[in-house]
């Protein structure tokens, strides 16, 4: 064997003794070092970032309100949409078909403006035409606060995407499961609630967590509806304070850091939830050990089981 080949071989052997996770940690350290270098080169005003961090971070509250409101609405709509999608009722099937087609087929930002601006207009015209049928008190309900309109749009939009996730999840449950529930004399509701959906959720939760994380950052779009500062979310606050001090990039960097931190926190909870719903699918009694084992072998990102 040549000298070079021998050295390579020795290197490979030495490398094999280093744990995989340590190597990954090393890669991260290097990436952060490079990023830190760029950060330093760009001469960002770190003092400004520190001073204005709390101001921007106050937006966390509204970002979370919007995201959680949006995901709750989306989950409800996706569940209804998916059940309608697999039902034999033509009205339910038709409505859900239109819903998915429209809200997946048009941009989210357009939907936000439609809900925020077009709904009040519809209300005003309805009142003008049929004042008896649509009194002002009723049509005024269509004039929404920007944050509410944004949350609605997010929920409707993500609900449409998630309808497909939920439908696939429900259909992934073996048909024998539904038959067993039927044979035991369960009602449709009981069958869905106790047998089909708990199993479907195991399939649904990983991609739904993904959607939630995506939505977390799409809350930034709500700022385009012009939310008042008092209830502005992270991005809006970053924009406002960045513009006024001519420190746009610094402000956006702070916002990016906050979004990233949020994502990491929710990814952690998503993992725990996945492990929980995998009960009954893992042979080992100790689920946490089992999921840790999975992650070690690189299966962590794709969920367990």
């Amino acid at each position, binding site marked *: 064997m040549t000298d070079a080949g021998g050295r390579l071989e020795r290197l490979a052997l030495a490398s094999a003794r280093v744990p995989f996770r340590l190597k990954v940690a090393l890669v991260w350290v290097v990436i952060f070092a490079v990023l830190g270098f760029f950060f330093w080169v760009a001469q960002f005003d770190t003092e400004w970032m520190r001073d204005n961090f709390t101001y921007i971070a106050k937006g966390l509250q509204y970002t979370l309100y919007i995201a959680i409101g949006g995901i709750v609405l989306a989950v409800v709509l996706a569940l209804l949409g998916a059940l309608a999608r697999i039902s034999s009722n033509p009205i339910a099937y038709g409505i859900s078909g239109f819903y998915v087609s429209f809200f997946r087929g048009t941009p989210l930002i357009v939907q936000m403006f439609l809900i925020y601006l077009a709904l009040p207009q519809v209300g005003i015209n309805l009142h003008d035409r049929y004042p008896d049928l649509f009194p002002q008190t009723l049509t005024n309900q269509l004039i929404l606060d920007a944050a509410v309109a944004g949350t609605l749009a997010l929920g409707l939009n993500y609900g449409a995407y998630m309808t497909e996730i939920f439908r696939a999840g429900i259909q992934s449950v*073996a048909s*024998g*499961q539904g*038959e*067993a*529930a*039927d*044979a*035991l*004399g*369960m*009602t449709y509701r*009981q069958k869905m609630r*106790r*047998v089909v959906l*708990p*199993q479907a959720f*195991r399939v649904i939760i990983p991609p739904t967590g993904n959607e939630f994380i995506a939505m977390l950052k799409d809350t930034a779009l709500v700022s385009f509806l012009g939310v008042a500062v008092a209830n502005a979310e992270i991005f809006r606050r970053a924009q406002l304070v960045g513009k006024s001090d001519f420190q746009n990039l610094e402000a956006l960097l702070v916002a990016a850091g906050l979004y990233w931190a949020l994502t990491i926190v929710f990814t952690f909870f998503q993992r725990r939830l996945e492990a929980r*719903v995998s*009960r*009954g*699918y*893992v*042979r080992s009694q100790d689920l946490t050990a089992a999921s840790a084992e999975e992650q070690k072998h690189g299966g962590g990102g794709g969920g367990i089981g």
Partner: protein
Amino acid sequence: MSERDVVIRVEGLHKRFGHLEVVKGVDLDLHKGEVVVVFGRSGSGKSTVLRCINFLDDPTQGTIEVAGMRLSGGFRSRRKREQIRQLRLHVGMVFQQFNLFPHMTALENVRTAPICAGIKDNRIHAMELLEQVGLADKANEHPIRLSGGQQQRVAIARALAMRPDAMLFDEPTSALDPELIGEVLAVMKSLATELHMPMIVVTHEMGFAREVADRMLFFHEGVVWEEGPPERVFDSTQKPETRKFLDAVL
């Protein structure tokens, strides 16, 4: 046997899947305490008849009568769906693939149907049933931690939990490793001989049939081709098709 003793009555049953007629006119009575073994080649319609009895498959023609309720197939209105559900409460079913609920423990599997029917304090009864199938010690295990034979025994306990008038077994041992078949058959046998549970069993386990069956039905091309007590079916077979099948499986 008198008319009063009929638990399940199938009359003039036909079942078509598209253009394929799988069941072509079957009449079948199951009496109190009776064990009927149904056998025949795959595609002969035997499983379909079983699935039509509790409306997992919808009868194309004919009626099913259970516990005084007489139902036929066709459009399922709200009222009809409720009638079918009521009928199913009187008939326990055991599947070839067990179909245990994987997210529930053995005990939860047994308890869930009665709980759905409003019987909340059924823990003791459920434990008795698990005891009866020899799995009381596995009550808190999830199905994945049980062997196929154990899973099928839990499935039997689950079907018994609604205190059915009769049981349907759809090839209950076909998915099992050979060494696990015996334990399931033993449970079924004790169900028949000790509790006198009326049952229709679709199976190729001819030993079980000879030992436990009161009556055997040979299905061929969607009809009952030959029927009789096991001794006659085995020892003085009437039809050449039955003989041929028996020679193949025995």
